[in-house]
């Protein structure tokens, strides 16, 4: 068989896809979610032999089944959104802060400290703002440490912030040895359970409503800050090109440190809300992996705080739904992680098809190779 003299074309070719219209991009994303759901259902159906429609029903019931479930879904959404909002300014600047987990924990630790030591003596009108300020400062300091190294020594912020997570986790584990109820039990228990000192207020009998309102306000603030403020403009310029930023007279070091401090401070708010606003206790699991999941939430929303409401909802909905499915069908709780993994795989995978075009070798050249 002699080779034809046509040039050899690979079976699959990938090219950058510029300018896919917005509606088409969203169509691809929706398709990805639909396919993910079909695959998940298929997977569960093979394992449990249930009716596939039951699968979707349980998923929705897990989120919206009762009033309590709706509130708890909204609370999770708010917390996820809060951490995602925290990451966003840093990401817009191309500072890959993956240390939100640790930054949230530092804020949580600061809140716990004040609740335990001042919760029953200080007036709540002073105490709660103080808790907010201190936890924001603690988290901001934790975040700024890698930022200073980045700004002055150009260290890799991804690794640096990641490592800071482990330091924070161990630090909180250490603090717990002072705060735990029974020595050695590793359980702090509910802080100020009887006096409710330092607990964030409940509004209209809804314990999560205050958290949700705070995060909503934060979302609006972040949208305006990034889109209309001078700071927001500086952030995008530094993100696009540090040299351009320098050329037009932006103090790059200052912008990096200021922005990461803001990122950390909002993580501090997340820590505050998780301890004083809902959990009323602390453990090394307080951040609950949100620091990592939020990276994706922020990224998928293209760093747009308003779109992040939707992406947080998608992630929270699937996580909760998957866990409901695991309980409803008597599967191992890790099955929920598997399902979440499958869904996220498709959602993230869809970005590939938005950013790139895939070309298959045409039939003509394929024939030529025979």
């Amino acid at each position, binding site marked *: 068989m002699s080779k034809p003299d046509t040039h050899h074309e690979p079976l699959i070719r990938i090219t950058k896809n510029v300018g896919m219209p917005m509606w088409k991009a969203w169509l691809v994303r929706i398709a990805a979610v639909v396919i993910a759901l*079909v695959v998940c*259902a*298929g997977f569960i*159906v*093979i394992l*449990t*032999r*249930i*009716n*596939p429609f*039951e699968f979707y029903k349980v998923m929705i019931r897990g989120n919206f089944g*009762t009033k*309590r*479930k709706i509130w*708890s879904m909204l609370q999770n959404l708010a917390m996820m959104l809060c951490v995602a909002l925290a990451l966003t300014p840093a990401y817009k600047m191309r500072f890959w802060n993956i240390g939100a987990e640790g930054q949230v924990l530092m804020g949580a630790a600061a809140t716990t400290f004040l609740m335990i030591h001042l919760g029953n003596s200080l007036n709540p009108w002073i105490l709660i703002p103080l808790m907010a300020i201190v936890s924001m400062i603690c988290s901001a300091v934790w975040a700024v440490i890698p930022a200073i190294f980045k700004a002055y020594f150009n260290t890799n912020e991804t690794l640096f912030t990641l490592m800071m997570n482990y330091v924070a986790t161990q630090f909180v*584990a250490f603090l717990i040895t002072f705060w735990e109820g*029974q*020595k*050695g*039990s*590793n*359980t702090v*228990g*509910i802080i100020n*359970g009887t006096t409710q000192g330092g607990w964030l207020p409940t509004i209209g009998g809804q314990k999560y409503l205050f958290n949700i309102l705070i995060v909503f306000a934060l979302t609006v603030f972040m949208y305006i800050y990034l889109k209309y403020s001078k700071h927001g403009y500086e952030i995008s310029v530094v993100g696009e090109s540090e040299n351009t930023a320098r050329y037009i007279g932006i103090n790059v070091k200052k912008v990096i440190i200021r922005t990461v401090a803001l990122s950390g401070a909002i993580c501090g708010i997340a820590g505050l809300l998780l301890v004083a606003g*809902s*959990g*009323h*206790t602390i*453990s090394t*699991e*307080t951040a609950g992996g949100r620091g990592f999941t939020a990276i994706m939430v922020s990224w998928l929303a293209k760093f747009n705080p308003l779109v992040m409401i939707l992406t947080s909802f998608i992630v929270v909905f699937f996580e909760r739904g998957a*866990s409901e499915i695991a*309980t409803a069908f*008597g599967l*191992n*709780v*890790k099955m929920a992680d598997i399902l979440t993994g499958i869904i996220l795989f498709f959602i993230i995978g869809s970005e590939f098809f938005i950013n790139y075009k895939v070309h*298959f070798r045409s039939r003509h050249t*394929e024939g030529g190779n025979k």
Partner: protein
Amino acid sequence: MKKFLAILLAAMLVFTLAACGGNSEETTTSDENTSQEATDIDYSSVKVGYIFLHDPTDSTYDKNFQNAVDEVKEKLGLKDEQILVRSGIPETEECKDTALELVDEGCNVIFADSFGHEQFIMEAAKECPEVAFYHATGTSASTSGIENFHNAFASIYEGRYLAGIAAGMKINEMIEKGEIKAEDAKIGYVGAFPYAEVISGYTSFFLGARSVCESATMEVKYTNSWFDEAAERTQAIALIDDGCILISQHADSPGAPRACEERKVPNVAYNVNTIDLGPTTAIISSKINWAPYMEMIIKAAATGEKVDTDWCGTIATGSVELTELNKDVAAEGTQEAIDKAIEEFKAGTLKVFDCSKFTVDGKHLETYTEAYGLEGQECIATENGVTFFNESSIISAPYFGIIIDGITAVENA
């Protein structure tokens, strides 16, 4: 080629969906033929919600509860929908939310299995006074004043003492065979957290072992987690490398028993039979059988009877058990020695924490009033001429939190 692939994929998808559709009817009628025991009590009004810290398929601790749930369900002829299990529930606000959700779903009995769940269950109990809440291993019910909140535990220290006898017999056999010298009889123990529940456990195990092998000593290492297979394995291996010739553990993963089987070091386990994991090394396990308690609380819900606010199961109630003795590994005469000790427990002549049998800083305990949560209360009692630390009698949860001579415990090692 491309089209073919596309068709193949499409066909696969269709088949998957078709397969599901076809099989869906089979599932509906599976729980009809449960053994309907002829009892006078009508259990149809009872719906129990269980909250487990980890998934029972992973964690031996939660598996032990799940086994009791299954046993009682079968025994009382409860239907699937009368039992709701929520596993993997952390010791956070989520625990309270889960409890309240179970109430929303119609549960009138709620049971949580982990120490750290307690305060969240108490909060839920305050909000739902019509629902009975039960919490295993907790310490607060007797003083909380919440009428519908209960604690339960079992005198597992007796079970551990018995398992300790099996360990001591094995060590004696090793000494007799010349495998080790008497002064090298060091036991290794992998504990979860350094507090009374764990300390009481290993002390009773150690005292059991030393009751038959006088030269025994023990080294304890903690994992600072209830479930961390890698850490439990690492600590078990560290203990073996440190010269321990027998390992036991109080943590919930199969990490330590597996490490022992690899290193061919005998192991005494907790809560589940580990002979499958270590056919040539597993000796025996002590366990709490939660079935008697679960049966009691379900009966109470059906009949409206009251359950003790703080209940402690014993060998007599069937709550403290030993799993099957692995005859291939255990020393000869182990079963007889255990049976003899059980008789003495029943007669009240043998006490695990007999003050004459151990010393603290070289002295025998005469008084002890510093137990956590029981400050000021005397824990030392005398019965049948034996002066002993009266474990699990003031409250059901263990409060023996003293490191005795012969045991070296390194925190956060």
